[in-house]
Structure formats: C-alpha cells, structure tokens
C-alpha cells in the first residue's frame, strides 16, 4: 500500500493533506500491521480528514460510522428489514397455507412455520450498517469510526469485539468474517477517555495544533489563492492566539475559514481593525472574543519590524506579558544508528 514513511507523506500530499513523519509513521504502521488507529486531538486538527485522505490515497472505499450518544449495535452493524420480511410473508401466503395444511394444533402450525425461519432470517433481509459493510466488503476498505468518544461506554465494549477479529455473529445466519481486514481509523476529541482495552488494541496517534511552518503549508495548500504575506501574518496571529487561555482554542479549520473570509473581503494585510471585525469567524464564544480583543495589539506586535527577526523579545514592550518560551530546537538528530 505504502512503500515507506516518506511514501505516505508524499501520497497524502498528493491529496492535499500535509503531514510530517509523526503522522506518516503511524499510518504506515497501521497499514503494515493491520492495526486500527485511535486518533486523538483537539477539534479541527484534521483527524477525520486524515482517514478520508488515506482512503483516497490507497483507493479504498471509505465506510464511515458516525458515533453519537445512543448509537447502538443495530445502527452500527445490521438490522432486519422487517417490512421486506413481511412483504414476503404476504406474497408467500399461499405457500404457507400448503405448509400448514394438515396441522392439527396451533402448536403444530407454529412448529412448521418455525422450520421455515431460515428463509426469513437470511442475508436477504439484513440491512447492513457500516460495520457489517466493512466486514463483508468484497474489496479492502477503510473504516472510519468518527468521534468514538461520543458513543456510550457499552458501545465501546461492543466495538472492541469487532475490532479484535473483524468477525461478527448474526445468530440466525452464522458467523461472518471479513474477507479483507479493513484499515480502521477511530477519531476522538477526548470528550471522554477510551478504555485501556480499546487503546491496547489500537495504535495511538495524537494530532496537536500544527507548528507555524506546517500550518503555513496547510494554509497554502488548502487556500491556494492566498498571498504569501497575508498567509504568514494570519498564521502568526493564529499561533499566538492559541497561547491565550481560551474556552475554545481555534484550530486548523478556523485558520482556513478565516483565510477564505479574508480573501472574500479582498484583504491584503491583517490590521488591528480587520482582526477585530472578523474575530467571530474564528472564535465562537463571546468571552473568548472579548478576551482576544484586549490582546490584538500583542497578537500582531513584533511582526511589523520588517524581516522576521528571531531571537529575543527586545521590542520596547513594557507589558509584563510572559515572553513565550522559545520554540524547542528542531531536534533533527541526524545520526542513523540503532541496532
């Protein structure tokens, strides 16, 4: 499927998904080891998108199970198609009459009907839901179990069984086993912690907010019309915004929304006033907007001193703002050794 970690980076890149080695390594291993991946991280950092692009990059059909509170087995696995069963009984009424002919007691009649059970409880009348579709698919598929943290703990236990061997038992029909193990991605916004058992079964990927460089690349890929200068300003503001203690920290999706909004407004640079007017695109809570409005000066400060001069907050800012800690040195240890 993928030749190497670099191959993953490249193939996802062709689908406009920009990622580093961290994400690519997990995707590569998931494909190699046929293990499900649990993707966690804040909302809007590209968890769902990752599963979608892996499907596209590998040419696998995407089968999506969206989780919600109250989701149960019937909705996730299969349901009997009751009305079709009934229709058949109506059509086959006469046939039934034949079967019943000679039955003397009610019990006898019921027995005879019972013997025909298998006619009505066969795959013909099963409505497959996403999990069963993934298991019975004729070609290898990609199963996306989205926002699994929203499902109930009992459902998680059920999911665990399915994910462990990709086979399910339909009592009336028998055991169905996957012809091809689907590649499974589970995403979670961490609304609740998944059980240890589930986690043990999965590879774990944590996608955090991107660093400045990565975010810029994502922005330029996803909003191609944007001018570089505006893109840089915007990303720099977003990066600083994330350091504020907000109720809902804006994510990549907000960066993209904001960029598109600014494009629509024909904006060429990001001034204080413009930020003020468009904050509601990226912040959803009144409290967050208020808090940010007080900080706009600082969000765009230092940027205007011409070239990107790194190193030292030597600006004349008297504010006791805690100077953000310097980014950790890009620790690209170059040595290639380990045995």
């Amino acid at each position, binding site marked *: 499927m993928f030749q*190497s*970690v670099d191959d993953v980076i490249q193939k996802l890149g062709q689908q406009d998904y920009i990622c580093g*080695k*961290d994400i690519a*390594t*997990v995707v*590569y*291993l998931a494909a*190699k*080891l046929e*293990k499900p*991946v*649990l993707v*966690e*991280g804040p909302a809007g950092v590209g968890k769902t998108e990752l599963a979608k692009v892996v499907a596209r990059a590998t040419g696998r059909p995407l089968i999506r199970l969206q989780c919600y*509170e*109250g989701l*149960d087995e019937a909705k996730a696995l299969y349901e009997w198609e*009751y*009305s079709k069963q*009934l*229709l058949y009984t*109506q059509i086959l009424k006469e046939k039934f009459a034949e079967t019943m002919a000679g039955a003397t007691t009610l019990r006898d009649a019921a027995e005879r009907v019972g013997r025909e059970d298998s006619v009505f409880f066969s795959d013909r009348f099963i409505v497959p839901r996403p999990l069963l579709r993934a298991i019975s698919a004729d070609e290898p598929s990609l199963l996306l179990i989205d926002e699994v943290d929203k499902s*109930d*703990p*009992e459902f998680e236990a059920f999911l665990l069984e399915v994910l462990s061997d990709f086979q399910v038992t339909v009592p009336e029909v028998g055991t169905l086993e996957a012809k091809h193990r689907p590649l499974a991605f589970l995403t979670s916004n*961490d*609304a*609740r*912690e998944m059980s*240890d058992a589930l*986690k*043990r079964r*999965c*590879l*774990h*990927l*944590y996608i955090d907010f991107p660093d400045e460089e990565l975010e810029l690349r994502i922005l330029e890929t996803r909003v191609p019309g944007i001018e570089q200068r505006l893109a840089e300003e915007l990303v720099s503001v977003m990066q600083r915004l994330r350091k504020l*203690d*907000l*109720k809902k920290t804006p994510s990549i999706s907000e960066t993209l929304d904001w960029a598109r909004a600014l494009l629509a407004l024909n904006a060429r640079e990001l001034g204080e006033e413009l930020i003020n007017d468009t904050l509601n695109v990226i912040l959803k809570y*009144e*409290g*967050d907007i208020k*808090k940010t409005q007080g900080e706009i000066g600082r969000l765009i400060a230092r940027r205007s001193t011409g070239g990107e001069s790194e190193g030292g907050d030597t600006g004349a800012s008297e504010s006791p703002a805690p100077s953000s800690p310097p980014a950790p040195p890009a620790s*690209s*240890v170059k*040595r*290639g*050794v*380990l*045995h």
Partner: protein
Amino acid sequence: MQQKIIAFANLLRKSGMRVSVAESLDAFVALDELSIGDREIFKDALRCTMVKRSDDIPTFNELFDRYWSAFYDQLREAFEQAGENAGDALDIEALLRAVEQGMEQLPPGSLDLSELAKVLLSQDLNALEQLIRQAAREAGTEKIENMLQIGFFTRRTMEQLGSEGTGEQLRSLAGQLRESGLSDAEADALLAMFERFMEALRRSVRNYTERELEQHNFDYMEKFRRESLLEKSFYNLSEEEIRKMREVVARLAQRIKNVLSIRKRRLKRGKLDLRTMLRRNAGHGGVPFELLFRERRKDRPKLVILCDVSSSVANVSRFMMQFMYSLQECFTKIRCFVFVSELGEVTPVFKDKDINDAITKALDGGDVINVYTRSNFGQAFHIFWRDHLAAIDNKTTVLVLGDARNNYNDPRAWCLRDIHNKARDVLWLNPESPSAWGFGDSVMDKYLPHVDVAEECRNLKQLSKIVDRLLL
C-alpha cells in the same frame, strides 16, 4: 535491541505509564517494519505502540531522549575528542588503517584480541554502546542509589568490560607492530592514542553510571510529584496546583456524566406503540408493515450542585468550583449554586466566563452572595427549599459539596429531607473525615439520613475513587 526496548518499557512503567506486554510486543513488530536508522521514525513507532494517553506524551519524550540519544551522543563526543588529540601529523584514520595492515602481517595466533579491543580498533560506537550497556547490567548499575556509588559502579562496569586486559592487549599490539616495521614515531602515536581510547572509555562508563543515577532519581521525582498532587489535601493546595489539576478534574466530570447516563439506560428501545401503529398501517389492510416504537424519552440526567464557599474552606471550594465548572461543561441540564449563609445561583456566570474568571467571581461573592459571613447550611438549604424546590424532580441528582460546619446554627435538616424526597438521589462530598462528622459544630450527622451517598473527599485521589465507585 529487544532487551533495550523491554528495559525502556519498564522505565515508562516506573514513571506511571501503563504499558502492557502486548504493547511492547507491538513495538518489536513495528520496528521490524521500519528502517530504524531514522531516529524520528523510531521514536514515533515506539510512541504509537506503547503510549496511549496524550497526557503521557511529554514524559515519554523526556524519557526517550534520556534513554536513547543522550548516552550515544556523549560516547561519540568522547571518542571524537580522543581522535582529534592525535595532533596534526597523524590522523586517526590513517593510524587505524596502518594497524589493520600491520595486523594482517602478524603471524596468526600471535594476538588474541578481546571483543572490546576489536570494537575500539574499528571504532564501531554502536557496538561499543551495546558492550557498555551489557557490562553495566552485569555490574548491577541499575541499583545505584546515590552519588557515592558512582565510582564503585564505574569500576565494576570497567571490570566487566575487561578493560584492563584490553589495555594490555592494545599496548602489546603496539609493541608487536613496532617490531614488525612501524616507525617509532607512529608506534608512539599509536600507544598514545590507545591510552586516550581507554580514557575516553572510562569517562563514558562513568557518564553512563551517572545517567543511571539520574534516571533513578528522575523516576522517583516523577512518582513523588504525581502522587503528592493526588494525595495532597485540598486544604493545602495553592492556586497554581489547582490549575494544574484542571484536566484531571475535567475527566472526572465527564466520567460522572457517563455514570449517570448509563444507570438510566435500561431498555434498548421503547415499547411497541400499538395504537399509532395500527392507525399508521391501516392503508396496508391492517398488516403492520411499519413497526412503531414509542420514542424512548431521552433521559438526560439533571444535576443540581450546592457548593459551600465559606472562607474556612477557601481552597477546597476553589477546587470544588473547578469540579463544578467542569461538570457544567458536560451536562446540559445543570444548575450550580454557591452558599455561605445566603445562597445564590452561579449557572449563568459559569456559562459565560472562562474557568478562572468564573471561579474568582463566584468566590468573591460580589453580586452573587455575601461570602464574608459565617457558614449556615441550614439557612442555605432553607433558601433553596423556598426558591428552588420546584426545580427538583425524580431525574435530578443533588450534589452537596461542603464540610457541614454550621457555626451552631439550626441545621434545618427537614429542608434536605424534602429535597431528598423529590430528587433521584442526594450525594454529599465532605472534605472532613467521617470521624469528625457530628463533632464540634459539624452537623453532618443530622444530614446523613437524607443523603444517599456521603463520602469523605479531601484530595484528588479520593475524588477519583468516588467517581470510580459510582461507576459500579
């Protein structure tokens, strides 16, 4: 390599992570699939197989760097220095090549080099790292506990490495090479270089021993830090510490929500709704093509929280408010009240403000209630009874957070009784231990008959146990 990974997994466990055996095995399998020459990929592979909680990632990163890179880097540095010091005339590469050629000409069997000597001559630092680790293991270095033992374990490791014998072998090798045609200058340089190798080796082993000690202390500190925060009484928490607990508390809140919602979910679906079904299917000659189930009412649990914010329990209440705030973020049907002797609702304050502002505001009382009075639980319950009893129904869980120290006021337990009668259940978390309940001005004993679950809750560990117990 596998051993090294197992040891690393142990280290992770010692620092409080849950790494199962199956997960270490996954790590082996994963590494088989990768070219692990790339350190970044190697690290990601270990992480995604062994670390499953995002909270643990920073600790993992730190331990990884300590465990996997630092020592090798030091080793390389030490031996690079040893090579550089050779002076301009003789570079180490040329010298080693000369040794190689010379050795080929020596009569076979005339020298029997140890593993260590071979590794030093070939400057294969990876192999050297392995040798040192193995020797250190045999020397029992991982048991090191204090600085005074550094010298001891360094010596023991050197002994295990057989360094003395190797030194001898190298010296005699230089001698033999001198006899078989190496110039005096070259031979002297060679001898000097061997000495420097041995010195670099000794320094590296010492460094390794120091690292082991550091690691030992590091685990210890980590554990200590975690446990202490868990076990520290709410009474003694600083604001900073409370903030640190924010995430843990948010998780607990979420778990409580799960509990309350599961307990309610008994039936898989609602009952068959015969009446509507027959009507709906009339068009099919009475054959019920469409089954109709009564919509099961969504049982959204309701939560009402009453939190004591009197100054005697200032830090406790700061913490409890944080808990309350987190709960509010999980539940849609929740109402939060604070009291000292008056009672005021803070639900809207919590909704609009971010956590710190909200708590400060509620604690300051200000527009909510006067907090600078003495606690009067009886009065607070009475006010709640008078103004809000109607809001309680049989789906409501009432949670009281407070010490029940009533300053000898009338407890008015009957108010709580009435609340209890209407509510689904009443839970009480008290920061004092049960042995103090009912003594002095504590009226906890008066309230107990009207409470379904009452627990001592003085630190995070207890709170999390309580949440666990509710889970069952």
